[in-house]
C-alpha cells in the first residue's frame, strides 16, 4: 500500500499558486512526501506535507497577487460588474419589477444574486487565470445570500440599496483585484 498526500493539500496549492509555478511546486511537494514516507513513514510524511501546504499558503497567495496587472484588473472588474448588474436587469425586465411570481423576490435577490455573484467571480477567474479568485467568489456569494433573504422578506427596506451596493463592491473588488496576470510590482 503506497502512502498518498492529504487530498486537501493537492487542492489548496493549485488554488493559491501562480499558474506557472503550480506544476513544479506540486512536484516538489510530491517528491518530498514520497521521500519522507520512505524514510520516516506515512504519518510523518503526511504531517510534513500538511505543514508545508499551510506554511506555503500565504507566500503563494502573495506571489499570485504580485502578478496582477492594471489591464487585467480592469477587465476583471468590468466582467464582474456586467455579470452582476446586467444579468439581473435583464431578468427584471423579463419578469417585471415587483412581480409576485411565486418565489420571485427570494429567487431574485437570493438565489439569482448568489448565482450571478459566483458567475461574476468565475469570470474574473477565467480572465485572470488565478484560481485564488474562486474561493473569494464563493465567499462573496455566501456572504450575500443571507442578505438576499432579508431583502426578500422586506423588499421595501433600505437593504436592497445597501446590500446591492455592498455586494457589487465586494464582487468588483474580490473578482477584479484578483483578475490579474502580470505584476503590479510592490518591490
Amino acid at each position, binding site marked *: 500500500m503506497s502512502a498518498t498526500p492529504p487530498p486537501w493539500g493537492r487542492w489548496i496549492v493549485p488554488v493559491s*499558486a501562480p499558474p506557472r509555478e503550480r506544476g513544479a511546486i506540486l*512536484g516538489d511537494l510530491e517528491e518530498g512526501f514520497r521521500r519522507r514516507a520512505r524514510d520516516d513513514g506515512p504519518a510523518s510524511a503526511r504531517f510534513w506535507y500538511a505543514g508545508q501546504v499551510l506554511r506555503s*499558503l500565504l507566500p503563494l497567495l502573495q*506571489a499570485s497577487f504580485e502578478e496582477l496587472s492594471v489591464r487585467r484588473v480592469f477587465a476583471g472588474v468590468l466582467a464582474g460588474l456586467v455579470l452582476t448588474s446586467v444579468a439581473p436587469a435583464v431578468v427584471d425586465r423579463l419578469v417585471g419589477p415587483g412581480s409576485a411570481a411565486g418565489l420571485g423576490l427570494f429567487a431574485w435577490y437570493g438565489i439569482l444574486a448568489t448565482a450571478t455573484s459566483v458567475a461574476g467571480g468565475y469570470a474574473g477567474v477565467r480572465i485572470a487565470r488565478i484560481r485564488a479568485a474562486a474561493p473569494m467568489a464563493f465567499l462573496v456569494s455566501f456572504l450575500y445570500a443571507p442578505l438576499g433573504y432579508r431583502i426578500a422578506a422586506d423588499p421595501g427596506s433600505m437593504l436592497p440599496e445597501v446590500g446591492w451596493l455592498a455586494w457589487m463592491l465586494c464582487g468588483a473588488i474580490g473578482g477584479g483585484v484578483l483578475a490579474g496576470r502580470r505584476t503590479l510590482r510592490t518591490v
Partner: protein
Amino acid sequence: MGHGRLTRFEFEVIAAILCAGEDAYGVRIADEITSRTGREVSIGSLYRTLKRLEDRGLLSCYMGEATAERGGRAKTYYRVEGPGREALRETTRQIRSLLDGLALETRSG
C-alpha cells in the same frame, strides 16, 4: 550595483543554487538551505523568492524532466545569472564590512 540589496532569504537562495550547481531545483535548493542553516524552508516561500529574483534578472530557469517520483510533474531548474552573482558578491561585501565594524567595536570595548 543596480539590482538592489538582497534580503537574507534571497541571499540564502542564491547561495544554495550555486551550491546545488546543475541540480538546482526546488527540493534540492530547500535541502541545501536546510542543511547549511538548520532552518526548514517552506516551498511556498522558496518559490515566491525564486520568482522575485527571476523577475529582477538575477536568476533564470528552465524546465527539466518529469519523473514518476514527482507524480509525473516536471522540475524547474534555476541558474544564477551574472547580476545575481554580482548581487551576492555585493551583499557578502556588505556583511563582511558590517562584521569588521563589529569586531573593531568588540576589541576596543
